């Protein structure tokens, strides 16, 4: 583990400490401390999301008149949002591959595209919320004239879960912008992209969770 720590802490100044150098294998394999830390965080965050989705399922199971979500929410916008997040996940791994190949320009380009993808997702979520808040429901009220049987729990659970995810996307974009700034400053020119990879883990997790949120709150 000592070797791993050393790699991690001084890699910026020393080109020879690139990812090609094999790390000491310990109980976490060759993963750096940063990566293990991120995985542990993501593990707890996954349980938070699982708790929210489980609460949603239990609430839905006991609430009369629960609608087919697609009829209320529509699938067009959320489908495109899903597509955008998947694409931004790909550009994220491509950015990492470029960075590890010491291609600074490629790293910057694909990181920037990833950030734009995240911002596009947020923009579409704002648009979706705007539509829902004005025409369908708020977190505490329902447009009864058009949706006379819609239970308020539908609105409450929808906004709680999707906004919680949206906050993750926002955090991810800020995180990636910081990594982008470091890339522009040439911090990853030695090909050691551990920080890019750790940020990527968070970003892919946000994508992964959206896949599940999209399924449980929009599709089924």
């Amino acid at each position, binding site marked *: 583990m000592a070797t791993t720590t050393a790699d991690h802490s001084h890699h910026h100044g020393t080109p020879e400490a690139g*990812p090609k150098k094999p790390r000491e*294998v310990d*109980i*976490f*394999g*060759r993963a750096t401390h940063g*990566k*293990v830390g991120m*995985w542990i965080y*993501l*593990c707890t965050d*996954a*349980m938070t999301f*699982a708790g929210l989705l*489980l609460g949603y*399922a*239990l609430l839905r*199971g*006991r609430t009369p008149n629960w609608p087919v979500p*697609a009829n209320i929410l529509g*699938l067009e916008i959320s*489908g495109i949002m*899903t*597509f955008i997040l*998947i*694409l931004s*996940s*790909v550009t*994220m*791994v*491509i950015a990492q*591959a470029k960075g*590890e*190949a010491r*291609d600074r320009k490629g790293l910057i380009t694909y990181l920037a595209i990833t950030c734009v993808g995240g911002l596009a997702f947020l923009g579409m979520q704002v648009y979706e919320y705007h539509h829902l*808040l*004005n025409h369908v429901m*708020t977190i*505490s*009220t*329902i*447009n*009864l*004239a058009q949706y*006379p*049987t819609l239970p*308020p*729990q539908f609105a409450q659970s929808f906004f709680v879960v999707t906004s919680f995810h949206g906050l993750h996307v926002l955090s991810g974009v800020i995180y990636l912008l910081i990594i982008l700034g470091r890339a522009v400053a040439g911090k990853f020119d030695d090909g050691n992209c551990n920080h890019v*990879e750790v940020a*990527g*883990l968070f970003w*892919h997790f946000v*994508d*992964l969770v959206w*896949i*599940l949120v*999209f*399924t449980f709150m929009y*599709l*089924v």
Partner: protein
Amino acid sequence: MLHAMNADQKIKKYVKVAITLTVITFVELAVVKFHFLPAVLITLLVVGLSLFKAYTVAWHFMHLNHERGWTRAVALLPLGMVVYAGVLLADQKFRPISDYVGEPDRVAHGTFEAEHSTKHEENKEAHAGATEDPMIETAGEVHTSEPTANQESHDVAPSPEKSPEKTPEASGSGGSGADSQWK
């Protein structure tokens, strides 16, 4: 990681994975949109495909395929929630309805709305001035005032101080007055 492959090979693989994910998403959307399968099958299919997508993202994009030892184990820990979810959902599904506190009350008021719409006026008079449950009063008010105002800007129509009272009420334990607003 992925030392064996050069950047271009990796990128090719990532693009393939992304195409797979996109195709699956389109299949899911098509299945839900045109529902040419029984509802149960649609749910099972869509949930199954989504879990496969989630696994694919973790395995290829989050590089779990290259992790070893406890890193992989930590990543799999949240799957414990599946067991937890199974227990709770099974409890809710199979426990007799009468075991739930307040449940018979809500079931009994399942036809409340129809009842409410005919008796509405007299109810309102009867309640006026009496020391009634405030829930029922507000529900009556909202019921009359909302439908028209609602159409334009429903989010201002019900006054905000009512909402917090409604939330616990609506979530189960009985008050039929609040139910009528939302149903």
